[in-house]
């Protein structure tokens, strides 16, 4: 259990609170939609499935008190309009937009500025692949919040991960600037730090160790997508083919590690996993909150699983 001497910022977006001292607010869970094998083909059936999954995450979030956010994956520009329209129509809450393509990320915020919704958008993510075009879009169509990804392929230690935030580690398109300054200069006031999950053999443990270090150093809400470490493990991939239940248990357990090390949010994988991940994280949240309240005197927020789930 952790408590930090550094003041911890609480980021609030559409009624969802990220961060603070461990135990103060529950972990925010980002479930990814429009990504993975269920969404290889984006036909009418897939959109219908997405709407049901969005509702399912909202339901389990309401049941547990663990906040859920949609992480909306957009593979390419051609899908922006229909996916964004579907999301805006399906939820009143905040959501993140997610794409591995910087052009698509930029195109999505441009579209959101036309149709409305930037005030509840988390940009996922500003990372070392940032382009000048993307930066320009961020300045013109500034989302309410951004996830800053601390992945540094030159040095995957905690120091290396911090280096990409502080200096850009010689890889960011604005020479000499770290990603944190880039984001602040773009006018994004609400910042979440993603420590950048790495696979086994690539300093994977630093993914979790970076969380308390980042909170201690920057005082910003910090988290990760630890399921990526699990999913990239060859042995686990093989097990998953043979025993889906065992994989699902491991997935829920992996996600529950994040609040234990002080994490504030998790990008937990496909939203279809919400029914297994939310209870597991609720358990960890309750444990952390009890410890934080009893030992550190932290005031636990109302609606926290600590008070709601008896």
């Amino acid at each position, binding site marked *: 259990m952790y408590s930090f001497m550094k003041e911890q910022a609480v980021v609030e977006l559409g009624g969802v609170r990220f961060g603070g001292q461990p135990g103060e607010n529950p972990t925010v869970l980002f479930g990814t939609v429009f990504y993975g094998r269920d969404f290889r083909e984006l036909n009418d059936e897939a959109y219908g499935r997405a709407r049901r999954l969005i509702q399912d995450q909202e339901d389990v979030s309401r049941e547990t008190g663990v906040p859920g956010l949609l992480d909306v994956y957009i593979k390419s520009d051609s899908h922006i309009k229909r996916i964004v329209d579907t999301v805006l129509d399906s939820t009143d809450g905040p959501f993140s937009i997610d794409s*591995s393509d910087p052009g698509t990320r930029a195109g999505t915020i441009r579209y959101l500025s036309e149709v409305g919704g930037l005030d509840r958008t988390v940009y996922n993510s500003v*990372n070392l*692949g940032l382009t000048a075009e993307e930066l320009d879009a961020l300045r013109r169509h500034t989302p309410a919040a951004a996830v800053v990804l601390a*992945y540094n*392929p*030159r040095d995957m*230690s905690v*120091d290396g991960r911090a280096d990409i935030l502080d200096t850009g580690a010689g890889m960011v398109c604005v020479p000499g600037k770290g990603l944190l300054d880039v984001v602040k200069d773009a006018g994004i006031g609400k910042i979440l730090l993603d420590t950048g999950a790495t696979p086994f053999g690539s300093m994977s443990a630093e993914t979790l160790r970076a969380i308390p270090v980042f909170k201690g*150093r920057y005082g910003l809400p910090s988290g990760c997508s630890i399921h990526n470490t699990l999913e990239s493990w060859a042995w686990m991939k093989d097990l998953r083919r043979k025993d889906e239940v065992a994989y699902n248990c491991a997935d829920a357990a992996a996600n529950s590690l994040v609040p234990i090390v002080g994490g504030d949010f998790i990008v937990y994988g496909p939203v279809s996993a919400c029914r297994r991940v939310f209870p597991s994280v609720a358990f960890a949240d309750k444990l952390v909150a009890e410890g934080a309240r009893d030992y550190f005197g932290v005031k636990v927020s109302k609606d926290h699983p600590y008070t709601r789930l008896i």
Partner: protein
Amino acid sequence: MIPTTVIGSFPVRLDGGRYAQAYFDGGAADAPSESLRLAVEAQVEAGVDIVSDGQTRGDFVRIFAASFRGVVMQERPVVVGELEYAGSRIAADQEAARSLLPKGVMLKGIVTGPYTLAKASENRHYRSVEDLAYAYAVGLAKEAEALGDVVDYVQVDEPFYSVEYPEYGRMLLDEVLSGVDCPTMLHVCGDVSGIFERLVEYDVDFLEHEFAANPKLWDTVGDVDFKQTLGVGVVRSDENKAETVKEIEGRMMTALSRKDAGRLMFNPDCGLRNLDPEVAMAKLRNMVAARDALK
């Protein structure tokens, strides 16, 4: 011809987009190897005679402190137990660097000195800084020996000597270099005028110092007799602006007016990692051009 060298670090810029894409695709991307390759190729292209691996793997304290059991890496290394050298993290880098060198270009391996490591660490175990520095020196001797098997020169960096000189400094360096058979170098940046007469007593083949930012150092060095070859800093490492060939040539001429050409080597004042890669490259190119103009 007076040889040129670098002090160690060289900045490189990588294509973040390519590495981001590899990350999202779950593919492999070896950024440390590409960084090393770019740093070595830049030095070779600039025409430097004795190059380094560019020290692109990380901070010059952390990379060595992390090679010891008994150290917990926090914002600074914290020594919590008996130090035990756990094996070289950079010997393989030297082999990779060596494989990139054309014939005639030589390689130096660099070790951060034990006193600098001791002063940069938080000591929660040893009775004194001296005890800690000596414990580091014992481990670093193995590191230096491992490097010595691969490189042409082994250099020890002790930047802290110019801030606070330890009376036992020579003993530390003798320990670090005890297993090294190739020629050795000691680099101390900053103003060494107060300790230069002590440094010339060291059993090393080269002394490398910061003359471009501290030209007054000649007032001391010019009057002292010593056996080592002098590595003269002829470009600044603290200014993100490349000096002209003419300017550098002037600094070289000053060196030649004070010491025999056969006892000189030219280098930047210190590592170049804090400069823009283009500026660092221009400094090296201009340094080599100025040296060539002396012929």
